[in-house]
């Protein structure tokens, strides 16, 4: 079968296809924008950071005093909960790695577009994650991160990096995981004996190695063309594509060492390491989008400590992401979406300090852009009711919060994703919009 025929065949049968770079054609690094999807896994509590409620131990807040007029940074309200390692079951060594909502909004409020009162329509972890990061819980849609990467640079070798969160690629492109600097360096230069000595010896003479690669490519393509069993054809093609730009991995400049945090901060350490690896891939022009995850938010017990601690880690982790992006000159091209499975509440599941909050289908999300103008920062959209923590509707044009629940539009993930897709260039006429339709109102959530 000719390659052209194969591509037609593959397209008809829904096989994953991406055109590999021909042998030595020039590689075009992807220059941005770069998308990071941060998952606060387990179900965060917006009441404890961006959708604060009046203090009332019988309802949603027994922890902090809240004055709507005072406790806000610009337009962004915050739960005024001080954080410290000692108070959160850690120790003072952890303090530099914890950040309060107030400090986070103070540092980055002008880069944040906050949406409160999102109706997730589920209390179910799996469905919640799927809905939050794909837009629909009743379909196995690809993650938006995957759709964006597949739309922009499907054949780039690290186009979609997922280190947690919702990683369904929808067969649009392969998912990549990164976890080790030393191992990555070795595979990025597979013919180099000692990666610490870039000019040192190679296993094969470079010409020999190229001869091997050429022979492998020819054989793989012949196999794909010559074998009509769909699974072989698909997987051989995937291998061929994966090898197409393999040599570009060497252009990834990894940090000398990944972040190493003290104490019981292993989950944050991992989040920050994933951040380092993703940014290195962005910088090399090999990646478009990345999933990053921080777990520990499923606080059915010890909510006042565990939820606050995880939020404080999350804010530090995102702060680190923004700082590192700036240091590497990527900040202006960085877009971050932060979400969770669902919210928590609406009240506490018990009167004791060790009790927690259960699942609640009303939540919030943050969209953050390194360049404040890109996302339109310092903006709050939507709300949940003070008395019942229920989603309030918004005017579909002005996005103003409405008091009458029978008027306007309730924001669900469908609405959010429709707007996120459009923002990311996957508008209503895009083929993905036909293939993975979302039935939702059009809201100008991102301009």
């Amino acid at each position, binding site marked *: *079968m000719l390659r052209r025929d194969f591509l037609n065949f593959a397209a*008809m049968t*829904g*096989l994953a296809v991406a055109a590999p770079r021909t042998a030595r054609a020039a590689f075009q690094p992807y220059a941005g924008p770069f998308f990071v999807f941060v998952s606060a896994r387990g179900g965060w509590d917006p009441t404890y950071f961006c959708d604060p409620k009046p203090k009332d131990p019988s309802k949603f807040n027994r922890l902090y005093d809240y004055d709507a007029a005072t406790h806000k940074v610009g337009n962004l309200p915050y739960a005024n909960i001080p954080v410290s390692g000692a108070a959160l079951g850690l120790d003072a060594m952890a303090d530099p790695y914890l950040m309060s909502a107030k400090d986070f909004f103070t540092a980055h409020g002008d880069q944040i577009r906050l949406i409160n009162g999102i109706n997730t*329509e589920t*209390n*179910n*972890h799996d*469905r919640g994650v799927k809905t939050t990061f794909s837009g629909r819980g009743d379909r196995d849609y690809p993650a938006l991160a995957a759709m964006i990467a597949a739309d922009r640079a499907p054949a780039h*070798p*690290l186009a979609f990096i997922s*280190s*947690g969160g919702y*990683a369904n*690629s929808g*067969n649009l492109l*392969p*998912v990549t*995981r990164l*976890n*080790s600097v*030393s191992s*990555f360096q*070795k*595979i990025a230069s*597979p*013919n180099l004996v000692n990666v610490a000595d870039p000019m040192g010896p190679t*296993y*094969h003479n470079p*010409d*020999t190695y190229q*001869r*091997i690669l050429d*022979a492998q490519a*020819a*054989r*793989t393509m012949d*196999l794909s063309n010559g*074998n*009509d*069993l*769909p*699974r*072989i054809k698909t*997987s*051989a093609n*995937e*291998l061929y594509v*994966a090898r197409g730009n*393999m040599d570009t*991995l060497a252009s990834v400049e990894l940090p000398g060492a990944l972040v190493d945090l003290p104490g019981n901060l292993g989950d944050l350490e991992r989040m920050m390491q994933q951040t380092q690896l993703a940014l290195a891939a962005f910088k090399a022009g090999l990646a478009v989008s990345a999933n990053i995850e921080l777990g520990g938010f499923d606080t*059915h*017990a010890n909510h006042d400590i565990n939820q606050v601690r995880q939020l404080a880690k999350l804010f530090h982790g995102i702060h680190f992401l923004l700082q590192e992006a700036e240091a590497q000159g990527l900040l202006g091209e960085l877009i971050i979406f932060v979400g969770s499975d669902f919210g928590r509440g*609406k009240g506490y599941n018990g009167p004791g300090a060790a009790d*927690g909050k*259960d699942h609640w*289908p*009303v939540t919030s999300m943050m969209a953050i852009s390194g360049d404040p103008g890109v996302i339109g920062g310092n903006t709050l959209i939507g709300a949940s009711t003070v008395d*019942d923590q*229920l989603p309030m509707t918004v005017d579909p044009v002005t996005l103003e919060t409405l008091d009458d629940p029978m008027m306007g539009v309730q924001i669900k993930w469908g609405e959010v994703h429709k707007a996120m897709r459009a923002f990311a260039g996957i508008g209503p006429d895009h083929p993905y919009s036909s293939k993975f339709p979302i039935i939702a109102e059009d809201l100008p959530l991102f301009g």
Partner: protein
Amino acid sequence: MNRSLRLVRKLGLARIPAFASVATLTLAGCYSGGGMNDDGTASDTDAMATTSGGSSATTGADTGTGSTGDETTGGTTGDPGDCYSTLQFFADEIWAPSFSKSCIQCHDPTGIAAEKNAKFLLLPPVYPGFMEANLANIASIAGYSYDDVPLILAKPLFLTEHEGGKVFTESDEIYAAIEELLVQLDDPIECPVDTSGAKSFDDVDLLTPVETLRKATLHLSGRLPTDEEIKAVEEGGLDAVALAVEEIMTEDAFYSRLLDVFNDKFLTDKFANGSTNNAVALLSEADFPGRNDFVNNVAMLPTPERVRINQAVAREPLELINYIIRNDRPFTEIITANYTVFNPDSADIYNADVSFNDPNDLGELQEGVITVPRGGAQMPFPHAGILTSPMWLNRFPTTPTNIMRHRARMVLFQFLATDVLALASQAISPDAGSAVFNPTRNNPDCAKCHKLIDPIAGAFQMFDKNDQEKLLDPPQWYPEVFSPGYLNELMPPDQFSTGIQWLAERVATDPRFALSSTYTIFEALTGMKPLHYPTNPDSEFYDSELTAWETQDLILRSIADKFVADNHNIKTVIREIILTPYFRGKGMLKAPTPARAAELAAVGIGRLSTPELLANKIGAVTGYPWVRSDKQPYLTVDYKILYGGHDSNEITERLTTVNAVMASVGARMANEHACTISAYDFTLPADQRTLFPLVELTDTPDNGSSAEIKANIQYLHKRILGEDLAIDDPELARTFQLFYDTLQAGLDNIANDVETTSLLSNCRATKNLKTGEALPMEQQITSDETYVVRAWMAVVTYLLADYRFLFE
């Protein structure tokens, strides 16, 4: 083409007696109901009747009235001699066009009709075996009528009360189809399933028996078949393959493979993973005093010993599974065993009162019981296989408000192949729960799932909600939660303290357990999850997807039946799946149409080897593992995550599509390993070499040795890739060209001082790769004046990174 006719040809099935196995699959029997009058008519509610527990036995197999494949298929469509089962007819003509779209809206187990105790219930595809369960349900109510009209027609015709109103008329196709179904149900037709796929896959080129043997041996035992095994299969064909697989399944390496298979499912290696105390530290001080010295006195033992002991504790559930399989116990014991197993290391930590034939043999496993101190006496664990494993309980923890629901979900998911979360297909309203007291029981939106989950959760009530493996005495449950039980059967209160055993007995006999077990092995051997029933009729290849699902479903259900019939022998499942086209497909006998290609998308070769499988394969075909200086395989340590593996913790799913990083891992492996082994292999006598038995370093094309070189290339293709190619095959010519070009260019480089005659130090043969001892000087190979070593290195690299090596 009429879909029925097309399916008849596609499946090529012959008629046999009716659907016996259907009868045992309960139709989500948690939905108790009344409303059926003794005379078989419907009561005043919307109540098409069924028997307690859902389905009941129908005719056919029970009465022995079925006919054989060559007989006519009375009342069915299709060509003479074909078999078109009642189940197939129901699936094609009733379920797909109608019931799956309209009726299920109210009649699914969480729908309005179910709430009103209707007996006509339809399981959605999330339930394995849903199709036959639905047919069984219809069979159970087929005898009921209203005014001489079958009730299943009278209701949707709105001749009698039906909250859904009028659904169709007598002129609609679905009416005729249901009429036809009711006729067939008097003498249902079931067709034999050809698990070899000879008919359903008659256009698929399958691995020969010898090729199948190679693939199975490498996969199951991480070795190549012996000459004796090959000879036996050459003579005995697939029957001999089955026999060989039986033998392979007695080898220790097979049980190492099973550790991976079942850890993929249960993920308890989260607590092993090279840790010095993660598993041991989970155990409570009071209940497991044997762990205290280990946890508190870290310096007492050197790190490798701590890792070993901790792993023994963490592996307790996986070793139990292996023990059951190795001793040919019914696989149901993985959840019903009233014991667990210990090795000398884990016995100390778990305080198990067991004795060993050889306390120094860490591979020895002995059955025993965990006991914990309660009230001055030792209280035994209510062992129920891995369901009571301290590791499983900690891996799937609970909380005081979750109250075991997470575990209940995992019971459904891991042992019954039922994703209960997928049942919650409807969006929930945030204010619905808050408006109702005790919503999980009283709010229908919540109760529809909790009715299924909470009774199972109640079976775990003897465990503490904070301290995961701590036994409570007495157990504790909650009056506001659905009572402990399973489906529609309540657990007797006197069973509460050992209720997990009560639950396990029921789960083990649920037909979904056999299906779930079959699915687990299918995924392990093929790298693919079983197909989901296609739910998008608008899909371009919907018919193909449906046919693919129907075919696979038939085959896997048939294998599950054999599993049950063979006393729940999981080895039967392994053997049977290996013989299917899902494992053996290697090509097409004719180019498929796009629709046929879509049908076959999940068939045959094309699974990217896992890091563990590839590590084994490298050792098997080259004779030497690709390992670090500490002898641990690179692929299962340094590159495990990069190569798509999981850590049982943060990352729990394998990547199945190769990406650039994974391709690069393959490249690194091929380069490093070819360097390590190529020169070394030449230090051995020819008859002891794994790579170069047919050539010497003096053989070059220029000295007339091209034939020997080509013969060795032919040998390498067969050994490394499993390709049995003729000496004039173009692929051998391509490989020879690589050898030749590399050799010539290398010689030129040496002549021009671009390269030296010395081998790279890493590639020199200076020590025995198996023992690590230095080779005698005269045996060492450190230089390569003729460039032959490096030319062969290029060939080995080329083959080790080949598609046919990396994929299976």
